């Protein structure tokens, strides 16, 4: 079938044809596979969060105490300290610990993806523009970093 015949076919064809069943079934199977993988992945709640800047761990703190921290970049170095509203931070991510979860509650990165990722008690939160990764680990997921 050449190009013009295919265009004619699209014009005559309905939006869905019987062959779509195979593609949609494959798509649904893929989603089911992803769901199974997601359920089988260990999700033990973490008790500590670790902050990595450019792949290097620069800070860690327990999740059992509610607190606010600020990550910011100064002279190419990533720094984490207790949040102080009076300081004018640049290239920052505000990290909030509440009820055993951690989230990025504010940032001046261009896309704010890290804020949209929400509060986590396991797994990771990333901020690609600031090369920041927050990793939450529990006893079951402890590794030697």
């Amino acid at each position, binding site marked *: 079938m050449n190009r013009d015949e295919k265009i004619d076919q699209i014009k005559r064809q*309905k939006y869905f044809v019987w062959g779509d069943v195979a593609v949609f079934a494959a798509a649904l199977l893929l*989603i089911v596979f*992803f769901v199974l*993988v997601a359920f089988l992945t260990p999700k033990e709640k973490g008790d500590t969060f670790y902050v990595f800047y450019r792949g290097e761990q620069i800070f860690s703190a327990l999740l059992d105490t509610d607190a606010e921290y600020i990550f910011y970049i100064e002279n190419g170095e990533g720094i984490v300290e207790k949040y102080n509203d009076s300081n004018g931070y640049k290239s920052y991510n505000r990290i909030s610990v509440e009820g055993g979860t951690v989230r990025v509650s504010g940032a001046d990165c261009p896309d704010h993806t890290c804020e*949209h*990722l929400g509060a986590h008690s396991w797994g990771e939160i990333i901020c*690609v*523009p600031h090369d920041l990764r927050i*990793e939450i680990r529990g006893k079951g997921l402890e590794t030697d970093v």
Partner: protein
Amino acid sequence: MKKITAREISILGIMLAAASIVFLIESLIPPLLPVAPYVKIGLANVFVLLVIIYYGAGKAFVFVLAKNLLTGLISWSGFAIVFNLAGSMCAYLIMAGLYAAVFPKVSLVSVSVAGAILSNIARTSVAVLIMEAPSLYVQLPFVGGFSLAAGIIVGILTTLCVKHLPERLTNVK
């Protein structure tokens, strides 16, 4: 690849501009899937599919590269370029492949659904690779479901364009 005519270049230029504008408008919309904010509907894929249909896979490849270069220059952001290039190249490869191999046994909607799913899996994989954060793969069930819906929307829009666009706009001869 056959010799390209002035008319083809002008139509492809208009489609490139339209695809870039749609892409930039879509990037202004807040994330529709908050758990995986880097996935998107990919409305610009309507234009990629139209170029595959009317001009063939070879010209569509150049079109995808040009679209990424143009949108990358406008919204200058290194990491966004990597996400978008990975997503759009994967979508292009599967859509061009399926359109050449199995259309009309499957509809354009299926071609588009495959493109959307692969594109968003590629974007998630880029996030995992850049940030060394494999736990992001846990988001794939949401990403897959979202992509299925996004692919249906893009596929129906493309079919509507082919059915209803006046022939003087699409006749490349």
